[in-house]
């Protein structure tokens, strides 16, 4: 029986949620292709993460554990994982399209001398071939591909598949992490100030644009985000205000920033340039607040309010705080 490998992302001893979403995609492919799912984790002190992975529905968990793997190393992890993929004769190798996945899976695919498709939102196995769908041009179009070389390597967009769970506990096999020199070394991990919700994991995204007029007015956006309660909403920005230096690039949504697809998106003082729409048009519900009733943002928004953001946003913050309090 062939093996579908999921590369699990473990940071600080915890397996990240997007990895469980990838296991859901892998289980779909396993059912369609008659394969088993093997999750591979790299790190130091992996027992807790492997116990979680064991309950995910994966058929087997492989832990490459040891002090030399305590911090992420693209070159060392890639080699160890590629060796295991060869030993397992993997038919497919999947990972989440996160900072680690974007760095690691391309290397694994190169060492396996095969192709790679990234940031996929759907996977398939039809007529003996693996396939995937991925947004291109920042979501202005969707590309459907079919793999013509084995194994099939794909990174899966977070927040797109439900997280796997409810398995009865799979076998965990431990391997010692190899030593040896690293080409690039992680020296330090600096946590973001104030435990901010990562933009691509947020359930609610509140984006502000040039209509906020001054950088300090983003306080209104931050207050609205805070009203949703801790860990729920993240602040985002349009390209115009990032280019003006009002907000960091890590908050930019759109073609040269991040693509987000939260359940709820607020566009405040954002006219809706084509580059911005590309980054948020797959949000489930979009709310636009803009003083210009003809702004293109209203063409993609489910609900719009025309008017002055400086009046509307504080009233909205109050109303949301009320809703959250009464939940």
């Amino acid at each position, binding site marked *: 029986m062939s093996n579908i490998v999921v590369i699990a992302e473990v940071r600080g001893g915890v397996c*990240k949620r997007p990895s469980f979403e990838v296991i859901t995609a892998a289980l779909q492919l396993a059912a369609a292709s008659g394969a088993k799912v093997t999750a591979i984790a790299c790190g130091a002190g992996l027992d807790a993460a492997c116990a979680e992975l064991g309950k995910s529905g994966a058929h087997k968990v492989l832990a490459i554990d040891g002090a030399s793997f305590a911090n*992420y190393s693209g*070159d060392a992890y890639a080699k160890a994982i590629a060796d295991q993929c060869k030993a397992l004769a993997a038919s497919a190798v999947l990972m989440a399209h*996160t*900072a680690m996945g*974007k*760095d690691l899976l*391309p*290397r694994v*695919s*190169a*060492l396996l001398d*095969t*192709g*790679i498709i*990234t940031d996929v939102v759907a996977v398939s196995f039809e007529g003996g071939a693996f396939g995937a769908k991925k947004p*291109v*041009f920042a*979501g*202005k179009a*969707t*590309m459907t591909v*079919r*793999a*013509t*070389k084995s194994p099939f390597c794909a990174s899966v967009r977070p927040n797109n598949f439900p997280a796997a769970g409810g398995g009865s506990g799979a076998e965990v096999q431990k391997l010692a992490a190899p030593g040896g020199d690293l*080409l*690039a*070394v*992680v020296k330090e*991990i*600096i946590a*973001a100030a104030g435990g*901010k919700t990562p933009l691509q994991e947020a359930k609610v995204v509140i984006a502000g644009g040039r209509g906020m007029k001054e950088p300090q007015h983003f306080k209104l956006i931050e207050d609205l985000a805070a009203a949703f309660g801790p860990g729920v909403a993240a602040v985002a920005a349009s390209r115009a205000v*990032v280019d003006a230096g009002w907000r960091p*690039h890590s908050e*930019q949504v759109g*073609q*040269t920033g991040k693509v987000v697809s939260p359940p709820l998106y607020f566009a405040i003082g954002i006219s809706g340039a*084509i*580059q911005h729409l590309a980054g948020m048009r*797959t949000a*489930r*519900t*979009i*709310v636009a607040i803009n003083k210009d*009733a003809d702004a293109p943002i209203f063409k993609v*928004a*489910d*609900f*719009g*309010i*025309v*008017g*002055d953001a400086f*009046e*509307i946003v504080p*009233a909205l913050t109050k109303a*949301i705080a009320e*809703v959250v309090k009464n939940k």
Partner: protein
Amino acid sequence: MDIVVCIKRVPATDSAIKIAADGKSIDPTGVQFELNAYDEYALEQALRIKEQLGAGSVTIVTLGPKESKKQLDDCLARGADKSVLLLTTDWAYDGASTAAALAAWIKTVPCNLVLCGRQAVDSDNNQLPANLAARLGFACVTEVQKLVLENGVFTAERDIEGAREVVTCKTPAVISCNKGLNEPRYANLKGIMAAKKKPFVEVPTQLGPRAMEIVSLTLPAARAAGRIIGTGADAVPALIAALRNEAKAL
């Protein structure tokens, strides 16, 4: 230090995308092409490293059609020393064959450092730099937002979800550049004149067998038309009601 900067000619980010008759590629009619935005940070960083060291070379390479010469010329005008076009008419959508072709060429030239943009904004793959590094056996740091070179060691900072990672490496290395790394310079008239005399080489290139084939390229379904709830702060209660009852979003 001999630096290679990989660039790509891509549709301008404000382009509307239309699908060609084959259903597998874009219709280029009326589309303006430009230098991939992230590649500007890679070029700028290369020029700054050369300036810091007071020695070395900056070579620009792209895999693409003849028209890519315009973007190569732009890079020469901004200060790069020479440019190379790996000429192909194939759309380089497939990461593996693109990385293989670039790696094969890089192995033929003196190169200690490869700088790339984080991703090309057409295929949005964000995989080439790390793929290339693995094929070359080079160290690699991706999506770098801060980069310092001191005593032959690079210290790079990159965003990971909810934190920043600080990574060090030596040459040979591949580093991919994110927005925020630097403020790219533009070409001035003197640079544009000087570029005309700089070396340009065209290398006919055949992409290897593709590891992926395109089945289709489609436009996403248009969102259903929404509605304006009202005007000003008075519309907030109606918005809350719509989010609760219709969208079930609260």
